[in-house]
């Protein structure tokens, strides 16, 4: 820990940290005003959706592929399959070993990544302009010709088991894993993206090859290219590197909605810790739901990361119970979840839970103030351009806008949609999508001392 900050940074995840020493600058930016985001979109003959956006102020290019498959497509007894396939993409192709891929990208100072999530998988290359051809070559190789060697398969699986063991030392991870099992009971969002020890052991190499064969084909790909490249060059490179990829059949999709949490459900997990990690919540909404923007404003006021949110004010500032507290609506292709998470010292566990429920209740019971509404809108609209102020962030956002079918006018319309939300909308969606009676509660910590009231 080289430094420590005043506000918790949201989304602090245990990703593999490769600290180089020289480059201690982790944040990237370079905002673009919403209206300026007008990428060129086309579909190639073999079915790839391509989005190209020229940005010439820095010699950087981001090549980003979104594959329309994720852990929600895992067979129930083989959770972790989509993630294992993604993890194997850069572990060797028919013409490059895993080490060669790592060396070729490292030696130009670029980066290559592949990562699965619930709804989709991403694979991307970030390079300097002069290395653009290499970036395309490696990404295309990974996506079209992964080797899936038996040896690499076994090795990566062992690594993933190691990752799980590390996750099991992280109380936040343990709590979320248990929470998802309660909220997504019987649904494909139930399991962690990387699976469980049990399901990972059941996956065979044939499963990996089968999943890849079914799910990875040109029509499943949204390819986003952003940076110091011309439209002609990007189009030509796409044709050269992805043009010969054979068309596949459309994938079959299961779009089952999760069942609601029927009653208050409590799960307590014993761990020898000084703090209790608390997660409380229930089912949420779909990304494409018309109420998404009203929910965004409501959740912002309740506790979505703002310094002046009600939860922050009550739990941290007034009661001093936690360093950080945040509420989330994770809106996905199918309805996701709503949850509040925090860590507090063991002795104040009950007090914190009562505090959270009381804020959920109060945002349902009375309209928010004019000032709260105005401030929420001002933040959401004002900070909107900073959400895609680097090539990497913008590529991610653009690909998701396309994936969820939000339309490219999203960038100019977002401020309007937020601005349209009224106090009545906020209270209506609070009543409709928050429930202080029927929820799942998970506490990880020293249970004997915490004496949690069920």
């Amino acid at each position, binding site marked *: 820990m080289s430094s420590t*900050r*005043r506000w918790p940074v949201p989304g602090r995840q245990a990703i593999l940290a490769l600290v180089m020493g020289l480059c201690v600058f982790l944040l990237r930016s370079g905002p673009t005003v919403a209206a300026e985001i007008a990428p060129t979109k086309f579909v190639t003959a073999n079915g790839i959706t391509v989005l190209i956006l020229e940005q010439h102020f820095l010699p950087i290019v981001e090549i980003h592929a979104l594959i329309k498959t994720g852990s929600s497509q895992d067979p129930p007894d083989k959770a972790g399959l989509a993630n294992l396939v993604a993890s194997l993409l850069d572990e060797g192709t028919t013409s490059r070993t895993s080490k060669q891929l790592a060396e070729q990208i490292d030696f130009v100072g670029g980066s290559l990544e592949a990562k699965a999530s619930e709804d989709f998988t991403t694979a991307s290359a970030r390079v300097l302009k002069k290395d653009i051809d290499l970036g395309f070559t490696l990404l295309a190789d990974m996506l079209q010709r992964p080797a899936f060697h038996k040896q690499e398969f076994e090795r990566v699986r062992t690594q993933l088991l190691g990752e799980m063991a590390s996750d099991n030392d992280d109380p936040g991870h343990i709590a979320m894993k248990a929470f998802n099992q309660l909220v997504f009971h019987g649904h494909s969002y139930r399991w962690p993206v990387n699976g469980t020890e049990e399901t990972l052991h059941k996956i065979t190499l044939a499963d990996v090859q089968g999943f890849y064969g079914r799910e990875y084909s040109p029509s499943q790909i949204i390819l986003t290219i952003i940076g110091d490249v011309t439209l002609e060059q990007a189009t030509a490179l796409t044709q050269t590197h992805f043009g010969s990829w054979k068309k596949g059949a459309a994938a079959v999709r299961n779009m089952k909605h999760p069942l609601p949490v029927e009653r208050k459900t409590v799960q307590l997990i014993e761990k020898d810790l000084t703090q209790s990690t608390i997660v409380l919540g229930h089912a949420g909404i779909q990304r494409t739901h018309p109420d998404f923007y009203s929910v965004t404003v409501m959740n912002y006021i309740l506790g979505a990361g703002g310094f002046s949110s009600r939860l922050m004010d009550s739990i941290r500032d007034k009661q001093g119970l936690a360093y950080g507290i945040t509420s989330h609506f994770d809106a996905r292709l199918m309805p996701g979840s709503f949850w509040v998470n925090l860590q507090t010292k063991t002795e104040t566990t009950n007090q914190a839970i009562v505090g959270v429920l009381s804020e959920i209740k109060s945002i349902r019971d009375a309209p928010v103030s004019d000032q709260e509404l105005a401030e929420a809108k001002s933040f959401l609209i004002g900070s909107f351009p900073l959400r895609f102020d680097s090539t990497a962030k913008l590529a991610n956002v653009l690909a998701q806008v396309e994936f969820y079918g939000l339309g490219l006018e999203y960038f100019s319309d977002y401020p309007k949609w937020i601005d349209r939300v009224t106090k009545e909308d906020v209270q209506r969606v609070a009543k409709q999508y928050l429930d202080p009676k029927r929820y799942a509660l998970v506490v990880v910590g020293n249970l004997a001392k915490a004496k949690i009231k069920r």
Partner: protein
Amino acid sequence: MRVVTERMPTLKSVTVGVWVNAGSRDEQSSQAGYSHFIEHMLFKGTSKRSSADISREIDALGGEMNAFTSRETTTYYVKVLDQQLQRALELLSDLFLHSRFAPREIEKEKQVILEEVRMVRDDPEDLVQELHSGQVLRRHPLGRPILGQEKTIREIRRIDLLRYVETHYDPRQTVISIAGNFDQAHLDPMVARYFGKGRWAKTNPANGRHPPDLHGGVLLKKKRLEQVHLCLGLNGIAAGHEDRYALYALNTVLGGSVSSRLFQEIREKRGLAYSIYSFLSGYSDSGMITVYAATRPKEVDRVVDLVCREIRRIGDKGVERKELEQAKTQMKGSLMLSLESSHSRMSKLAKDELTHGRHVSLEDMLDQIDRVGEEQVLHVGRQFFKLDSLAITGLGPLSSRSLQASR
């Protein structure tokens, strides 16, 4: 106060940072945690704004405002769209110059910070690094946790914080760094207006620093966890040292990337650890090389042996010519790719000023990386990559026989 700026006209954002050249190492042991506590208190009310006003205004700016404390610096920064620059400067200067340190707010903030201390205690990766610093640096102020100790935090009084600010928040030791889109002609008078009347400290805090002695040895702490978390440490060099690029290159080869020897040997080839990397810490007068790994309890000795083998290999033989060239290309590439944002430029400007007293251009840095030669690398490798002063810290389900050979 020194002001350093860099215009990035293609951006729409601007980041302003106020860097105070004082951090946890400048505290007496009875003051452990003061720098960080003050960093929190600057958001808790000024003569014209309440704590709630500050939170609301930060949110209303639609940007990002935060602060962080390290061992040698305390930084307050704000990143906003360019048209909000004046409001951001005004708010930042109000916090910086007119905070009230109200006793009620101090008492409440103690609880928040104590929760932060507990969070570190429950996070094995953070905790092992903290234990490791304490083990390598013993009683030296650099070895203390930045957050301080429960006892010193509980005992903090308003007067203690005010005295600390008076001695340590010295305008001569403060750098304002601004990068992004702005108009220089408008910026200068704005900065003068909001920061021109700073308080003057009585002493120069950085003068009290003295370099630490690093200690080797093995420290094992048993804890009920699934994995054993390990830190291995060697002596390094100061932030501005002339050999720093040679050491960066060696670190890149050792464990600074996915093609590095440690990553390839331990993770990729043998699957012994999911997480393994090495990094350099550079302070104004000293530095450290640290390797971190998380592994299964039964593999601890093997992982430590392999890390030692790679350290010794670099100490004895240096690195191959091809590897050095590749490391240099990689360092240059990542350096260029890392300077995309106004935030990273702002940090670089401030660090250059604090470390070198001048701006070091990107071209200069690239040039210095280019000039790293085989002889220099061999020499630096011999000097630092040796096991006689190696420090090892382990946290997790360790058996009494773990690491017996290393002890």
